[in-house]
């Protein structure tokens, strides 16, 4: 039987792997991928708790908003990464080390 604990453990695993990806990688796109993993972990939690809220579904509505905001955030972040690539000819984050380029 699948209980709430299963969902929460999957979500915790995905969250910590996402944190590790965002911290270890130097490429800006890889950091973005790690952040997407963290978003998905948060969404699993919300959807799992929303299963016990059959009359309001507040968790699912909130997860829907998170998906929309995550898509907008990815679009803006990739635009910034492209801009940085035009400036520095690199997307490695530790080579981007000056503010007024």
């Amino acid at each position, binding site marked *: 039987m699948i209980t709430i604990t299963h969902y929460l453990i999957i979500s915790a695993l995905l969250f910590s792997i996402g944190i590790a990806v965002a911290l270890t990688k*130097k490429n800006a796109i890889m950091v973005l991928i790690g952040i997407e993993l963290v978003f998905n972990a948060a969404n699993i939690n919300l959807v799992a708790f929303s299963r016990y809220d059959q009359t309001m579904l507040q968790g699912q509505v909130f997860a829907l*908003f998170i998906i929309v905001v995550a898509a907008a955030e990815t*679009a803006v972040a990739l*635009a910034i990464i492209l801009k940085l690539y035009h400036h520095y000819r690199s997307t490695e984050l530790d080579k981007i080390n000056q503010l007024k380029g």
Partner: protein
Amino acid sequence: MYMNLETIVFYLFSAIIVISALLILFTRNVLYAAFLLIFTFLGVAAIYVFAGADFLAITQILVYVGGVLVLLIFGVMLSHRLAGEPVLSGQHNWFIALLLSAGIFVLLLQVILKGTFYFQQPNFNTGNIEPVNNSTIKLLGFQLMTNFVFPFELVAIILLVALIGAAFLARKQALNQG
């Protein structure tokens, strides 16, 4: 321990999520990571189906696999010179990152395993929800148009502003400076 089919399939999808996420962590190739992300997103969509969120699973596939992933791959393509060699990402901070994420995981696991969750409707604790009668689409649309109409409009404006801003940021530079 008694395992029915639902539990086995749940563990299968959980294994897909965790293994592809771990492969993302240990690969250095950015394009491999972007394609492994497909498996993670599809596994998360399957988990949504298990939690009774059918509309959200479809939205996950449409928005993440169809939108975000294509954006990411376009980002990889546009920000690297593809001259035959694979797109590799540098790595650093292994010790601190693994220590931190393992610490977060142990902390979360303690909270999850030792906490007791009380729900308002305890008859749903067993998790047997009728799959046919309980499509969430109608209720979700009703909620979006009544209780959550202000955040709905706000998120629409955020999406519009973000897309215009992204197109403005990524344009060719020569317009304003000439």
